[in-house]
């Protein structure tokens, strides 16, 4: 399950990076103060809500129940045992 956590962490930070880029553009280049404030509020509220909900849903998932990771691991282990020229006594 670590690989999924790593992949999700990468995805999460990509989303943060895109969000920071958008906020930077709004603050730096927008020419109307009222529009800038409104856009910032809407964007930050919606993005943080979506990111929070997404991370909560990810942590509530039990991927090991859906994906047969244990049986795949057992298969790999048993194949490795068969490939050895000697057999372990136990």
């Amino acid at each position: 399950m670590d690989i999924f956590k790593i992949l999700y962490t990468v995805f999460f930070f990509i989303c943060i990076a895109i969000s920071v880029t958008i906020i930077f553009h709004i603050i730096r280049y927008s020419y109307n103060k009222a529009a800038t404030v409104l856009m910032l509020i809407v964007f930050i509220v919606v993005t943080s809500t979506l990111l929070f909900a997404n991370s909560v849903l990810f942590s509530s998932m039990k991927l090991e129940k859906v994906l047969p990771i244990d049986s795949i691991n057992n298969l790999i282990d048993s194949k490795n045992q068969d490939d050895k020229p000697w057999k372990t006594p136990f």
Partner: protein
Amino acid sequence: MINLGKLHFRDIGKQERVIRVIHRHWFDIFKQFIIIFAGTAFLVWGFFSLPDLISDFLPKLENTNTYAIVFFIESTFALILWLYASLIWIDYHLDIWVITTERIINVEQKGVFVRQVSELKLSKIQDVTTKVGGVIPTILNYGNVYVQTAGQETRFVFRHIPDPYHTKSEIMKLQKQALQRSTQRLGEMVREGSMNM
């Protein structure tokens, strides 16, 4: 009121006034938002329909974990849609054309990290051309305005702006006024010079 200082130009002149700030026509961004609307409709449909579909057709998978995975996928899709929509909006909102009494300023956000700012003095304009092509642009009255200067410089383009004919007339009128003012200033300088002699 537009803050010309934010557009990273030299100081605005004392006599200079902003006449108009132009964005691209709303239909231009609407075309890009069609895919966002379709994605949102799919999301809403999925939120209400997928749990019922799973219980009807995949009863063996019906448990809390399955719903958590379905909602996680929907949430990820919603996040990606939102960020994509925000990028489209930023691209639209930061593309502006500013017409003042002295010059035309073109601010074009060509990508996330590509931004082009250029200006053109009204007195240097040689030709202004309007182009409205297609059924929808004709009905909604939006198109391009091309401003050509003397020499071999590339022309200024107002891309997909509303009411391009009015913008063209406005530019021509302001250009004549700018030429008159520069002629007057030249006359005053000549008079001052002759008086001093």
